[in-house]
């Protein structure tokens, strides 16, 4: 456990080195909410979304969580390219401890970054009850760990930064555009009429859909969004799969390098 904590501390120190990057990221996220979402509120049909600004606010927390949890992959990819992983592998800890520490650190950093965005949600929507807050935090933590796992799996499987960035882009567009982060799930059905039915199914099982809809179920007071334990289960399954995959990939592939 102590070794894992050391790895987490190392990654947190690295995270704060990117403070300007984080400031820029927060500015972009807030511009999405306080400019784009405010304008789309005027445009969106009220029969589909009553208030787009309120609808999008929980989605924004997920957007922020994704961006920051994914940053761990960027660092690991850089370490692989600059061969810093040799140093990491020489540390007095097992490969598994190192890998678990990195996956957890990625998730926890995502939680840290997302906190101001979640607080913004509480301000513009309303405060959840304590059990609701704990459920939201648990779901987002699981989601962050899963995203960190996806990011690390891609980072150790790509040999160049360009390939990593390209893979990240593809994953980002697939996960976000086929989810209810930006628009309600009911609207995505339109893709089925254009011959893109599998994308609708993907949107329904997408952990980002379940994560953002879970927050909405507690903060929007709308009959359309009702909490279901299946939402939490969906995110937990995603998290377990990708955390395990990343741990295995990090521990094994790094040794091969």
């Amino acid at each position, binding site marked *: 456990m102590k070794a894992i904590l050391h790895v987490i501390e190392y990654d947190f120190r690295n995270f704060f080195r990117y403070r300007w990057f984080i400031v*820029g990221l927060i500015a972009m996220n807030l511009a999405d909410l306080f*400019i784009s979402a405010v304008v789309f509120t005027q445009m*969106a049909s009220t029969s589909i979304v009553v208030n787009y600004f309120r609808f999008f606010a929980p989605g924004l927390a997920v957007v922020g969580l994704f961006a920051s949890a994914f940053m761990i992959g960027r660092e690991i990819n850089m370490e692989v390219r600059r061969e810093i992983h040799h140093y990491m592998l020489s540390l007095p800890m097992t490969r598994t401890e190192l890998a678990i520490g990195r996956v957890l650190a990625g998730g926890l950093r995502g939680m840290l970054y997302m906190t101001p965005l979640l607080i913004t949600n509480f301000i513009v929507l309303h405060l959840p009850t304590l059990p609701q807050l704990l459920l939201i935090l648990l779901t987002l933590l699981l989601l962050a760990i899963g995203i960190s796992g996806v990011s690390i799996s891609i980072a150790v499987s790509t040999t160049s930064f360009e390939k990593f960035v390209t893979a990240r*882009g593809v994953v980002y567009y697939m996960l976000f555009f086929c989810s209810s982060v930006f628009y309600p799930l009911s609207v995505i059905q*339109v*893709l089925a009429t254009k011959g*893109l039915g599998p994308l609708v199914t993907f949107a329904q099982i997408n952990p980002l859909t379940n994560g953002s809809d879970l927050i909405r179920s507690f903060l929007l007071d709308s009959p359309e969004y009702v909490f279901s334990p299946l939402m939490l289960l969906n995110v937990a399954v995603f998290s377990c799969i990708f955390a395990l995959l990343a741990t295995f990939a990090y521990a094994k592939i790094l040794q091969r390098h």
Partner: protein
Amino acid sequence: MGLKKLGLVVERDFRMFIQYKFMLVMRGIWFVSQVALFGLVVNRMVQESAAAVGINYFNYYVAGVTIITLYSTAMFIGYDIFEEAEHGVFEYLLTLPVSRRELVLGRSIGGGLRSFIYVGPLLVVVLFILGVSNPLYLLIALASMFLFAFGVSGMSITLAVAMKSGDKYDILIGVLDALIVRLSTTMYPTVYMQRATPAFATIANFNPLTYVADMFRWGTGVEGALKFSPFTAVLALFIFFFAFTFVGVVFYERRLEGGSWQ
């Protein structure tokens, strides 16, 4: 000023651009997913209200995404300048039998031209989707897009040479991108910005992205009438192009001397 030497600088920048093949592929994927996923779904969400103001939102959005792509690829030149400073290529460039002015002007032209060439195939697809109502209007719109691309390239060079850190440049570009794109008519018409917050609409009226996006929509017939005359839009884009190309050239030329990039 030798045109041949200028051409060589432009050619070099174009060759460098092609090296970003993964980035270019990613931009292409972004474009396709913006149109085929985001555009289609958001259109479903806003079509009622857009129809009320006489807009087919899907077409409106496709035209806007084309301009965002043009903008973001024209900004690439700034990253090249940082790469060169980091890897000591500046020194090599200064030893070339090309005057400082030719080098700087060539880079500004190259930055704009390559983004336009990249957007070319996407533009063909977009024109296929949107159609062309008046070829003359389209030509005027394409000319204004040229001016815009060169202006953005000059702006990117100006920002890149004004900053010492690649990380800070990256952040500034991110923040600028977030504001300049969102406070323009690339994604939504001014009428909704006005309804949301009049200040947004006021800022959008001074944004070059607004002018070029509206000109492109006018050129393709997506928007029947412009809020301002085409002459005003072209003039505004010319001022943007001239100001940044000039400022970019002067800044870059000054920075080249004395190793201040190090």
